[in-house]
């Protein structure tokens, strides 16, 4: 049986409407910016990763991750 509490990403007032595309993209970008700035071991960066992994379709964040690895991502990650 499932034990423990189920959590969902909390309400983000920057994205109040039904369209959460930008929320997904923003958390992905914020995770990479956080990691670039503070390093991968920095715990708070894991928050952004948790959010985008929860809400983004896998196709999207996997495809973006490939582009990040190829240095071809179309967002400012520095």
């Amino acid at each position, binding site marked *: 049986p*499932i034990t423990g509490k189920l959590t969902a990403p909390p309400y983000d007032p920057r994205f109040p409407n039904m369209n959460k595309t930008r929320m*997904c993209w923003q958390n992905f970008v914020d995770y990479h910016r956080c990691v670039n700035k503070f390093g991968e071991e920095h715990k708070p960066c894991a928050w952004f990763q948790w959010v985008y992994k929860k*809400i983004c379709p896998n196709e999207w964040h996997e495809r973006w991750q490939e582009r990040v690895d190829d240095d071809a991502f179309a967002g400012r990650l520095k």
Partner: protein
Amino acid sequence: IVSYLVLGNYFFNGLNFFMGNLIMFHDFLLIICYFVLFFILSLMLSMVVFSGSYFNNLGNVVLEVVWTVIPSLILLGLVEPSLTLLYISEAFSFNNGQVLKVVGHQWYWSYNSDLINSVVQDSTDYDSYLITSDLVSGDFRLLEVDLPLVVLANVPLYFFVSSSDVIHSFALPSLGLKVDAFPGRLNVGVSGGVSVGCYWGQCSEICGANHAFMPIGMEALIYF
């Protein structure tokens, strides 16, 4: 309407709170429509059936005021449940509950639930196809799917819906839910807790040849 509904149990078929109230509002509204219809029909019928002159009084200010005020009072009475429902449909805090990702394809759905580890593929995504053959007696012909969306009962559900090719629509009418799936867009639909059971829906946006053959099956369980 919303407050007294909580006391009674109008949630047959395991609907959620929102849909139960929506059904009650619809019934209430329909009764008002029947009253209005009956009244108008009786007036019209009386004009047809009974002989007499109706041209005695060609202007009556009181009558005109009355037949303006009474419908506006009826409409005022309808404001409260209507607006309440409008606001409770989105009244979720998003802090706890189950997050489900739904992606529409031509012509099947793929689901990703944080509670399911797929044994079929490497990722936690799994595809859900309509079952066309090997139906057992008692199955629903165009609704049975091989791998339904499995969900925890009694917790809020957040459906994040997108599409990989053309526009689809994720519909669960028992929950009052219809979330369009656009390629390149992520829409969210929320539902309060549902009770244990099976819920069905069908793709609600024309998406090609097999648009009618990509149903949504959802099972709500309390035990995994």
